[in-house]
């Protein structure tokens, strides 16, 4: 069997890497996952920096193109393969696409900052034997609650964030939420909100995401 042209570099446990993996799986795009030994600072070595100049994961290659930034990679995959796998991840017309972009930006600007801090503080800091910052946890929990109140309202009148279909906007939330719901005592933030809970339950049980979680637990 020929090696798939698509390569993703980085560990599946990385939230940004898992964002790309779930997108590829949703689109049925074959790929090769290339391990990057971050404990040995492989991501800061010259060969890796050539692909990702900020020295972060993931890096992504397809044919002769090298990309980084998980949300840029997801957009590229969804646009290159509109008819493969799950349709409509990035919309089928400009108006739907605009709505998806809007909620993708909301994830990026409003949901990601506090949920990333909480994920780091509650999941990764203990693993790395770093001291947790209680004030930071409290501050970001409060921020996240406000964002989830907006989502609760939105998801009361819309099945998914951008409309009736599962899109990149929902997908982008999977990595951080998975950690917060399954690996911390903050699951209640999501599960105590009826519509958010319903939405989380739907998107997290999609086969593509379940496969990514298997890869993370391997």
């Amino acid at each position, binding site marked *: 069997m020929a090696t798939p042209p698509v390569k993703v570099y980085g560990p599946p446990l990385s939230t940004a890497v898992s964002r790309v993996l779930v997108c590829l799986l949703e689109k049925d795009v074959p790929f090769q996952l290339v391990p990057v030994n971050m404990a040995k600072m492989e991501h800061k070595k010259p060969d890796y920096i050539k692909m990702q100049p900020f020295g972060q994961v993931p890096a992504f290659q397809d044919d002769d193109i090298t990309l*980084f930034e998980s949300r*840029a990679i997801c957009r590229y995959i969804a*646009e290159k393969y509109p008819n493969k796998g799950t349709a409509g991840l990035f919309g089928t017309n*400009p108006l739907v*696409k*605009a709505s998806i972009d*809007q909620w993708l930006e909301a994830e*990026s600007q409003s949901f990601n900052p506090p949920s990333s801090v909480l994920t780091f503080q509650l999941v990764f800091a203990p693993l790395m034997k770093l001291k947790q910052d209680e004030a930071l946890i409290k501050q970001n929990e409060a921020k996240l609650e406000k964002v989830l109140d907006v989502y609760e309202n939105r998801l009361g009148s819309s099945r998914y964030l951008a409309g009736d279909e599962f899109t990149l906007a929902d997908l982008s939330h999977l990595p951080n939420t998975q950690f917060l719901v399954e690996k911390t005592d903050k699951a209640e933030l999501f599960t105590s909100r009826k519509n958010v809970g319903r939405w989380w339950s739907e998107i997290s049980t999609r086969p593509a995401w379940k496969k990514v979680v298997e890869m993370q637990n391997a």
Partner: protein
Amino acid sequence: MALKVHGTVGSPATFRALAALYEKDLDFEFIPVNLSAKEHKSLQFLAHNNPFGQVPVFEHGDLKLFESRAITKYVAEAFADKGTSLIHKDPKKSAIQTVWTEVEAQKFDPTVAKLGWEIVFKPMFGMTTDEAVVAEFEKKLEPMLDVYEKRLTESKYLGGDSFTLADLHHLPTLHGIMGTKVKRLFDARPHVSAWASDILSRPAWVKVASMLTK
């Protein structure tokens, strides 16, 4: 179909959207939102404009959008043939442009906005600049600008060989920080410095920035 922007003069996100509209030579109605009167947090605004209670909000006929970077993208694509082309049409070039658009959103803006908050806005609101935070965030900015310097040595603009949204999105935060001591970090890197001067002197941006003095 009429274009409308609900926004506030001086709001970087509002200015980001306006920059795109002016680059595209588009006529639009500017509807001021009074942030000090908490207009953006009114039930009406939250229900009808932006549930996150932020500016800008953009209207094109029945379409209503929030998030400045979604607005600029829509404008760039819906009016692709008008004014400055702000996006690459070739899929590979477009993908590279999107990478650097994400770099602005994920890295540049959070770091530089934090510096702007400490140095520019806190004194305006009678608060004291925390110099330790300034030092911390300058330390984050320097290696980032080193990456920008290398990129701009290989590419005329961040997203490729022409000015696109990848560059435009930087304008509001860049403009603000260039009026502070942080400018020295940009000046120390020749390609970054040239790129910054170039994009800040674009007529469309000058038009947006002039709203500050009106």
